[in-house]
């Protein structure tokens, strides 16, 4: 029986490698896709383009603008008035505009009340808020410094020193690459086994199996195992080639531990795929159900928005996303470098949620066919 299973698994693998188009897409997902995700996006404020309307044009006003430096900000030039500013904002040419009123220098030096305006493009969701916050901070530091004629460092005030753990430079691409890898794994684990099974259904091969000595459950298990092997192999390849090799993301913890957690996650989550296969009758249905399940799993894992900022009900629902345990566990291993004594709870979470999912998926599938 074991022998038969192995033969079936090998048959599935050969079949998978024969479909050149699919093979190409899967390879791309584990390599090029991660690279593009890493390059494309940075949720922290980077190169935020801004213009200045400076009605003062004094030494101090120019000095203030010089404090807005790269890589956070990018100064694009001076504008003559609000009219052009409005057009530039409309065309999304900048994230914000700083306005400095007349007599700015005079008022600072004579210690009378003054103001600086920040106009933010409210349609750039994540950057708008950060732009306003960072700019306000620079301006208030500057005005403190100038109105007391001394270095701020010597005033009796509190200086905030920050230290960012696990990722000193707050490189977004580390986070983006790894979460993209998790999304890729989850997409494939939902769709590959299900589509392999549906294909047999659609082609009518299931009827053929009924008259052969191979049990249908063996046949299904072989498919699921074969797809799991492909995904785990893909993860190993992309971790070595892309994450460690090309993007040079520091891998603090044990690679074996990460592979183990990945295998556990992949195997247990394939239960969801079996469930999809039991419900669906054709590929159109598989694709729709996959996306319907994929999005909540991704969202509830906390890979888009931090769990603690979600609405209360969603926070509780996050415990139902198997990806949550895998994601937190993997981050602890990869970036924090924690060992098994710390991450065992993520293994336990993946296991406890995954096993019922797997059993139910297998049960439904067996009953349906």
């Amino acid at each position, binding site marked *: 029986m074991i022998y038969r299973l192995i033969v079936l698994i090998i048959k599935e693998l050969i079949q998978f490698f024969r479909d050149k188009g699919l093979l190409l897409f899967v390879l791309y997902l584990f390599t090029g896709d991660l690279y593009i995700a890493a390059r494309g996006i940075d949720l922290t404020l980077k190169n935020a383009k801004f213009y200045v309307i400076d009605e003062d044009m004094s030494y101090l006003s120019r000095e203030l603008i010089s404090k807005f430096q790269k890589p956070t900000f990018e100064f694009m030039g001076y504008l003559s008035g609000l009219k052009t500013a409005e057009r530039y904002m409309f065309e999304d040419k900048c994230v914000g505009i700083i306005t400095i009123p007349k007599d700015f220098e005079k008022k600072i030096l004579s210690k009378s009340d003054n103001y600086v305006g*920040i106009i933010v493009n409210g349609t*750039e969701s994540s950057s*708008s*808020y950060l732009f306003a916050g960072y700019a306000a901070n620079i301006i208030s530091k500057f005005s403190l410094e100038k109105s007391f004629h001394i270095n701020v460092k010597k005033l009796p005030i509190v200086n905030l020193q920050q230290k960012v753990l696990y990722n000193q430079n707050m490189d977004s691409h580390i986070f983006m690459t790894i979460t993209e890898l998790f999304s890729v794994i989850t997409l494939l684990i939902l769709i590959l086994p299900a589509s392999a099974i549906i294909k047999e259904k659609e082609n009518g091969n299931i009827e053929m199996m009924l008259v052969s000595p191979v049990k249908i459950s063996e046949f299904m298990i072989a498919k699921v195992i074969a797809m799991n092997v492909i995904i785990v192999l893909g993860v190993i390849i992309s971790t070595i080639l892309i994450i460690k090799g090309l993007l040079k993301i520091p891998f603090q913890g044990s690679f074996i531990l990460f592979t183990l957690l990945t295998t556990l996650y992949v195997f247990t989550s394939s239960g969801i795929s079996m469930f999809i296969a039991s419900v669906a009758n054709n*590929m159109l249905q598989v694709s729709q159900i996959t996306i319907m399940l994929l999005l909540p799993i991704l969202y509830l894992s906390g890979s888009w928005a931090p769990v603690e900022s979600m609405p209360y009900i969603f926070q509780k629902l996050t415990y139902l996303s198997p990806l949550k345990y895998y994601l937190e566990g993997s981050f602890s291993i990869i970036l924090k470098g924690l060992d098994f004594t710390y991450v065992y709870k993520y293994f336990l979470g993946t296991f406890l949620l995954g096993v019922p999912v797997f059993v139910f998926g297998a049960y439904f599938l067996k009953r349906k066919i």
Partner: protein
Amino acid sequence: MNIKKISTIYKKEIKELKRDKISRIMVFMMPIMIMFVFGYGMALDVEKIPFVILDEDNSYLSRELTYSFIQNSRYYKFIGTVKSQNEGIELIDKGESRMLLVIPSNFEKRLKSNLPVDIQIFEDGIFPYRASVSISYSTIIANNFNLNLITKHSQNSVITDIRTRYWFNEDMRQKNVTASGVLLIALFIGPAIVSSLLVVKEKEYGSIYNIYTSSIRKTEFILGKQLFVMSIFIINYFILYLMTIFLFDVPFKGSFLLFTFSSILYLLVSTSLGILISTFVKTQVTAVVGSAIICIIPAILYSGYITPVSSMANEAYFIAHIFPNYYYFNLIKMCYLKGLSLSEYIKNMTILAIFYIILISLSIFRFRKYE
């Protein structure tokens, strides 16, 4: 071109959908689901960050500072105090806390003797966006604390008043952008997947041979299929539009008619892309995986939905411009938030139309009526 032949293909697909109970529900459920998850989920406001305090000074002033952190319950959630730095960092390791605030033992003494003092925050850097927002909150709290100290100190203190205004989104409701932006994602991924499946399905079943031997021309075949997907997703467009207005309270400043035109054009682009993909692949699973890959990345990452296109680095800036999503997102922002500018509207519409012409001609060119 024969309208009758196109409508035959169209009717055939409608009949098939009527027979397929699950798909019939799913094609309408999927965009609604995307709207729910992204509309509620893409909360980019970082709030309620759990943090702990290590106060080595435990003086009047240090308590005043820690109190201003604890009081800020919208952004921070105070979990407790710790006795040592290691204990605090271990809590971050375990994922129970995201920040540790350390106040040194000479805090009050230094301030009272007119010297500056350093306080330190340790941030969990796993999620860099959360860390950077948290740092900016802390900076604001520390700045306010400093302002209070100084105003107590000197008589003629100056405060530079910072007047911040948010244009196009006066209350800075991120939902206005994230919810209306869902149209960008839902009207791209869904249509592309469904239309890519429609053609490949016939290839995989072998029923495509009926098409090969029939008198129907390939243009008629492709347009019939496209028309079918379009009619499903135009209904979806109306549902999603109503959801943004009534469920998410997004203001709408443009013209509904013009916005509907631009959405139909966008749907033409995404369905043509799906058909083009289907001419390259042989199996349905490849079509689904392929169109998901090709659509998700540009729609979410390179459209300006999450980060502004203007601040992307060269390479990414270029990529953003060669996908249609960026232009449709411009139209969305214009119609919902910014108000209509006719010249900008025409510019973005023309670019979308060019995308459509290129994609549909490529698919007609690529589609072979023989093998």
